[in-house]
């Protein structure tokens, strides 16, 4: 078992981090809050150029043919910079869902392949409406929608979807509530294919959020650490106090201990996204907890300053609060872990701890 990332993976992450460091200082995020679309088209185009939306698409379909283990650090990086653009969803949710349907339903394949190409080229935005998420982020910017009706998947152009904009506590988001009508013409995956597609999609969506939550948590702690060195009280930096150190040390422990499960879940999703429920749920729960603790303790370290609109910490804190509840909240995911554990034939025990998945251990 090897949790390390290879050089290509590292380089990809560093490239993205350098781009976001240059293009996405906090004041740019605040500028987006004032705009209708909430999206910076130039940055979105640069992310396409980097190949983000094509990453998880097989080479045969014109993509880069990589998998979730290659993408996971990028998702984390998007969280670290609190990227408002839905890049993680495009790459990890919309594109793979299109691929799954293309593979499963040859009759819809030509249409969907064309759409997938547009998605990879940044020419079309595809939003996904899963029943766990009553509101779709950036619905107003989407050209196409992949929507669930029962287990079936329908593909609709924006013109056939009525969107009611609703506001999020995170001003970086542009949520919409959707109204639409399924028809034979819009059906792209029947209930049987759709059930598998949605299951995989939920796992990818929750994985993407888990990784972003990790990045958010990390970034909040970094800000608090820096502040604890700058801010003086009682004639010395507040960070010299153990009470302050311990607040952030606790976060560091939680974040590090969430990281391995998130990477582990990425691996499982890469192997078989439909059979990654327990691994993803584990990751989502612990990453969410790490982000909640980081938000709480970082605000605490900033004191009253952390409670102001002006303090950038709120950008990360509010994103964390929102992402923790998307693609299933902690209760949902704990229940999934629980259900998996109480199955009579649950594959638990030491021989399953390290990634043998559902292959019984050969003795």
């Amino acid at each position, binding site marked *: 078992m090897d949790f390390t990332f290879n050089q290509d993976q590292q380089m990809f992450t560093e490239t993205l981090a350098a781009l976001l460091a240059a293009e996405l200082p906090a004041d740019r995020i605040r500028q987006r809050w004032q705009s209708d679309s909430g999206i910076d088209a130039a940055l979105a185009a640069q992310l396409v150029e980097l190949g983000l939306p094509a990453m998880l698409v097989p080479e045969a379909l014109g993509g880069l043919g990589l998998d979730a283990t290659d993408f996971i650090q990028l998702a984390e990086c998007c969280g670290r910079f609190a990227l408002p653009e839905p890049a993680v969803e495009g790459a990890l949710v919309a594109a793979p869902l299109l691929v799954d349907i293309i593979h499963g339903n040859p009759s819809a394949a030509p249409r969907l392949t064309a759409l997938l190409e547009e998605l990879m080229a940044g020419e079309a935005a595809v939003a996904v409406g899963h029943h766990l998420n009553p509101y779709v982020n950036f619905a107003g910017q989407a050209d196409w929608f992949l929507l669930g009706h029962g287990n079936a998947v329908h593909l609709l152009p924006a013109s056939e979807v009525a969107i009611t904009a609703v506001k999020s506590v995170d001003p970086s988001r542009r949520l919409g509530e959707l109204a639409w009508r399924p028809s034979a013409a819009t059906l792209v995956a029947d209930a049987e294919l759709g059930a598998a597609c949605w299951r995989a999609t939920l796992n990818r969506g929750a994985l993407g959020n888990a990784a972003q939550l990790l990045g958010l948590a990390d970034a909040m702690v970094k800000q608090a650490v820096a502040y604890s060195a700058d801010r003086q009280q009682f004639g010395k930096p507040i960070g010299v106090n153990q009470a302050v150190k311990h607040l952030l040390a606790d976060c560091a422990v939680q974040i590090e201990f969430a990281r391995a499960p998130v990477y582990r879940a990425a691996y499982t999703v890469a192997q078989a996204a439909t059979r990654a429920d327990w691994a993803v749920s584990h990751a989502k729960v612990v990453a969410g907890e790490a982000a909640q603790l980081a938000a709480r303790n970082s605000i*605490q370290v900033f*004191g*009253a300053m952390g409670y102001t609109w002006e303090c950038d910490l709120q950008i990360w804190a509010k994103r964390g*609060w929102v992402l923790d509840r998307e693609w299933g909240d902690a209760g949902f995911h704990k229940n999934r872990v629980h259900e998996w554990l109480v199955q009579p034939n649950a594959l638990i025990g030491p021989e399953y701890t390290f990634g043998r998945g559902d292959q019984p251990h050969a003795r």
Partner: protein
Amino acid sequence: MNLRSNAADEAFRREVASWLEQHLSGEFAQLRHRGGPGDEHSFVEERKAWERELARGGWTCIGWPQSHGGRGATIEQQVIFNEEYARAGGPGRIGHIGETLMGPTLIAYGSAEQQARYLPGIREGREFWCQGYSEPSAGSDLGNVKTRAELDADSGQWRINGQKVWTSWATESDYCFVIARTQPGSVGHKGLGFFMVALDQPGVTIRPIEQLTGSAEFNEVFFDDALCSAEDLIGGPEQGWQVAMALLGFERGVSTLGQQMLFQNELDQVVAAARDNGADRDPIIRQRIADAHIGLRIMRYNSMRMLAGGEDGSLSKEAMIYKLYWSSWHRNLGNLAMDVLGAEAQLLDGDGYQLSRLQGLFLYSRADTIYGGTNQIQRNLIAERALGMPREPRG
């Protein structure tokens, strides 16, 4: 120990309830359940009018002695009043800083002239107060206050220069109690005075600070040669720290009772939301609701114990735990509220950045562990003052 209420108390309860029922009507009906944490900005003028209405019925400052215009209400009666007030959905009290902090401080430390000058305005709901302690470089380290006060020998007035920050309610207030340095070059707790400063004067500039809740309850307050008459200093020019600390003692006293009733209302709302959306079927949510209830009862019993036995100061150490306990409890209630709401938790209603009451509860409770002494400072106090552990070196 006697935990039973007597017939007189029950009669008092009926009196309060029926008065509130009659008076929270007409123009005031719209104020029910408004103005709590996260909703501070609704109906400010109407709530000030409500303070005057309360005053006309003799329901402000009921715990003050009769000699100062209060009712001399017992602790039990004050609890009853607060319970009934919460039950009736009485609006958030704009007058509470005056009633529970400034008033008791004046009664304990003010001169007869000062009492005569300021107590009636508080009691009658005409004059409102805010607290000018914190400064940019004096948060937890309150002794680092830098605002200066100089006595102008000719006019006999104090001139105040400096800046306060995080001053809640300054824009809605008439007066601010300010701690300022009267001795140039003094440091720490020495050389401070406690001033009652009128805010409506050219030397005072108030600038609201927007909070992450999108509202602006607190403010920056700048003093540029602001004037304060020599009669408006409580205690001597070097006794400000003692007065300021005594005032904080009142903050941990009876004023907590009203807050608990508000907490009860919030918990009720969380429970109602869980019933509404089915979250109450989730066993984890059910347990957390039970925990919240238990915590609230603990606070209630504990403060009854403190308040009833606290007059001789024998429970002053026990009283130190209260702030840490309620702030952590309230923050957890905020988390619970959001978990009950699930995906809905992130939705804003209406124009601008308008939080729902439960969202307000969640975001507002982030500050509870900060103001009035952070949780870290509270723990230090408990360890060093109550348990007598060795003190951490300061400064």
